[in-house]
């Protein structure tokens, strides 16, 4: 039997299927270039709730329920929920898990959470510990602003390197092999890489070396060439970090030209005042659950490497002058037929 792990990469012996995906986004994301690919576009950011936080919880609940419906899996047949978000004590994930009412793993990998959840979920299925699991992550612009930056109505000027936290949630239901059109074959688990940058308004540059580290490890571990992938999609390096990562990879002999994209650059266009682009756990999650999964299923892409990237600082650490540790996790998603 082939080894189930090489280096940092897990190799699923019987690749678990992706049974269904769902994306729920806010109004700004619903006006962006990927508008048509999201399942649900909310007309306002409060979703009829009394706080931003409860609005985010609502998005997670909706994304999970819709993904389960599309997968044809009832809540009672869900073995584990793997969820995370950006908020202190990952409340959006945990409060939604209260509603979903199934065994729950709460995860934190900042904006890398969706890949972390998918990697672990597929391992649970491949390891025989579960039949169906759901991986979900979310972010909300206003919950993130009040936690990391300023009150929403405060008139602060943002530098051009700043990114816009997406109001979005993406859920992925993973189940037994051979059932769905898509499957998960590998996951490369990232190390925490700290390049020493301290500017929380330039997270793309801080995360780029972490993305490079994980991507390089993936190609080293699998022995594949970049040509094996139709797309290598980073999480949210955005317009500043993504070209930087491309250059750093080229220096390591990995040329991803023509197949290297970033979900932070895909979710908004230049007229949407998002500065460098999107960010947040919901950004890569909704872009995967919406645009990428649907195009994989439709046959536009055969195989992609999703590299979700997260900055692991907190307001406390940057106020205390610490640098920003970052992580990137990668999963390989391919079409079965």
């Amino acid at each position: 039997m082939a080894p189930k792990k090489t280096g940092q990469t897990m190799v699923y012996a019987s690749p678990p299927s992706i049974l269904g995906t769902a994306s729920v986004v806010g109004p700004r994301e619903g006006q962006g270039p990927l508008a048509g690919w999201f399942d649900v576009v909310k007309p306002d950011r409060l979703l009829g709730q009394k706080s931003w936080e409860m609005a985010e919880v609502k998005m997670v609940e909706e994304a999970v329920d819709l993904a389960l419906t599309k997968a044809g899996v009832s809540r009672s047949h869900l073995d584990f929920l793997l969820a995370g978000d950006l908020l202190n004590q990952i409340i959006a994930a945990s409060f939604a898990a209260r509603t979903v009412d199934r065994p729950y793993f709460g995860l934190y990998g900042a904006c890398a959470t969706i890949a972390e959840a998918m990697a672990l979920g597929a391992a649970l299925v491949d390891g025989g510990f579960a039949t169906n699991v759901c991986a979900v992550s979310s972010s909300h612009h206003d919950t993130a602003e009040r936690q990391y930056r300023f009150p929403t109505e405060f008139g602060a000027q943002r530098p051009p390197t700043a990114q816009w936290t997406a109001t979005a949630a993406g859920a992925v239901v993973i189940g037994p092999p051979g059932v769905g059109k898509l499957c998960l074959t590998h996951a490369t688990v990232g190390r925490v890489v700290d390049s020493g940058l301290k500017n929380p308004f330039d997270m793309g540059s801080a995360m780029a070396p972490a993305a490079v580290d994980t991507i390089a490890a993936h190609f080293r571990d699998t022995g594949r060439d970049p040509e094996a992938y139709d797309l290598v999609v980073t999480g949210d390096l955005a317009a500043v970090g993504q070209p930087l990562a491309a250059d750093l990879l080229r220096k390591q002999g990995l040329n991803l030209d023509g197949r290297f994209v970033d979900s932070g650059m895909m979710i908004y266009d230049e007229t949407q005042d998002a500065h460098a682009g999107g960010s947040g756990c919901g950004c890569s999650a909704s872009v995967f659950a919406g645009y990428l999964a649907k195009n994989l299923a439709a046959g536009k892409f055969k195989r992609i490497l999703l590299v979700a990237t997260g900055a692991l600082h907190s307001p406390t650490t940057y106020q205390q002058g610490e640098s920003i540790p970052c992580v990137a996790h990668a999963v390989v998603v391919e079409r079965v037929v």
Partner: protein
Amino acid sequence: MKADKGSSESYERLVRKRGPKPPYLRNAVWAFVTGGAICAVGQLFLGWFLARGLPLREATAPASAVMIALGATLTGLGVYDELGKRAGMGAALPITGFANSIVSPAMEYRREGLVLGVGARLFTIAGPVIVYAVAAALVMTLLRLAVVGVRGG
């Protein structure tokens, strides 16, 4: 893995060299026009209070109060953050910006209640400004005392 000092510094240089520069000129023009316009409105109100017969010393207080109310209202209407985003210091420096810095946390943290929300976090942004303004005033007063003594006009 944490980068050593050398590689961390060389990466920081690379990032700084490649990163986009803020549109300094556009920001400055926005700040100049917006800040100027806010002050012109303030001047109009001051003139109005003066015309009503208040002496200059007393007319500045109600004129400031009107500007604070204006800043607070524009914050409540969701206009001031849009203005601040473009005009930067042009919107932050006038007293309307000070109102924005107090009203925006009041709105944001209202959901945590009147005591632990609004009460405790009202001065999240304005607090440091007040603390250091008072401290600076104290230092300047002491300096003045040392230089000109207790007399003076």
